[in-house]
């Protein structure tokens, strides 16, 4: 997933978090924000690990 899409998703969730009047729904947006941030970290790690395997010269 590209970075601008990631950024868009987090910005939209942040917007919901700030404008939602109901407490339990704000909690949902906060929880979702945390999961999305964790997903983005994991996606970057996985992509780096895959690159590492694909560029392993011992496998060429």
């Amino acid at each position, binding site marked *: *997933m590209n970075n601008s*899409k*990631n950024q*868009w*998703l987090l910005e*939209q*969730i942040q*917007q*919901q978090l700030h404008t*939602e009047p109901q*407490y*339990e*729904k*704000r*909690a*949902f947006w*906060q*929880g*979702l924000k*945390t*999961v*999305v941030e*964790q*997903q*983005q970290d*994991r*996606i970057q790690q*996985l*992509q780096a*690990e*895959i690159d590492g*395997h*694909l560029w392993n010269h011992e*496998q060429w």
Partner: protein
Amino acid sequence: MQTLVIVSHPDVDNSSTQQFLQQGAHLVQAKWHYLDKLETYNVVQERQLLLNSQRIIFQFPLYWYTSPASLAKWLAQVLSTKFLDNLEDKELGLAVSTGLPAKDFQAGGKIGYHLDQILTPYQALAQQAKMIFLPIFAIYQFSYLSEIERLQLLMDYQRYLSQTKLDSLKNRSDWYLNYFQHQQLTQNQTTQLIQDTFRQTTQELDNLQTTLKLIKQDEDDTLE
């Protein structure tokens, strides 16, 4: 999945922690069963509550390294060695609040023992009943939590009560996708787009994990 929350607290109406958690239990339709308002326990009814539930949570503030008296009294009256056979394969969790910070509950800390050690008797109970013991859900110093930490706690608690699979990023993501569909969130074009994009990122994560697994599998085959 039916979850039963058995609450032991001498004054639940004046406990901000318990009032807060009750909101979370309500949101995921868990059954809230408050022990201290009962003068005596109807053993048949109490056992039926357990039989009707797949996940059973004992919830209490830590009092002198154990639960308040009502839970000990309830356990003594309701359980029997023979009845434990009926609890096999059900899940047992503990939601425990403390007045001290997490750092105190470790070797070398003020208390010196982790909650896993202090609450060992409940793990023994689960083992004897052949129940699945869930990782303890600890709430340290609720009154000192920031607004954002409280919002996060409300969601983590709901997941503790209702997420069917073990905790992992994939299972957390699936739980949130499910929540989108089943809770009454405001539905408009933006929230729909957020939901769709989140589903895509969850799928992308899944695809990358599968790809990496295949690459590793391929490397293992090459080595053979």
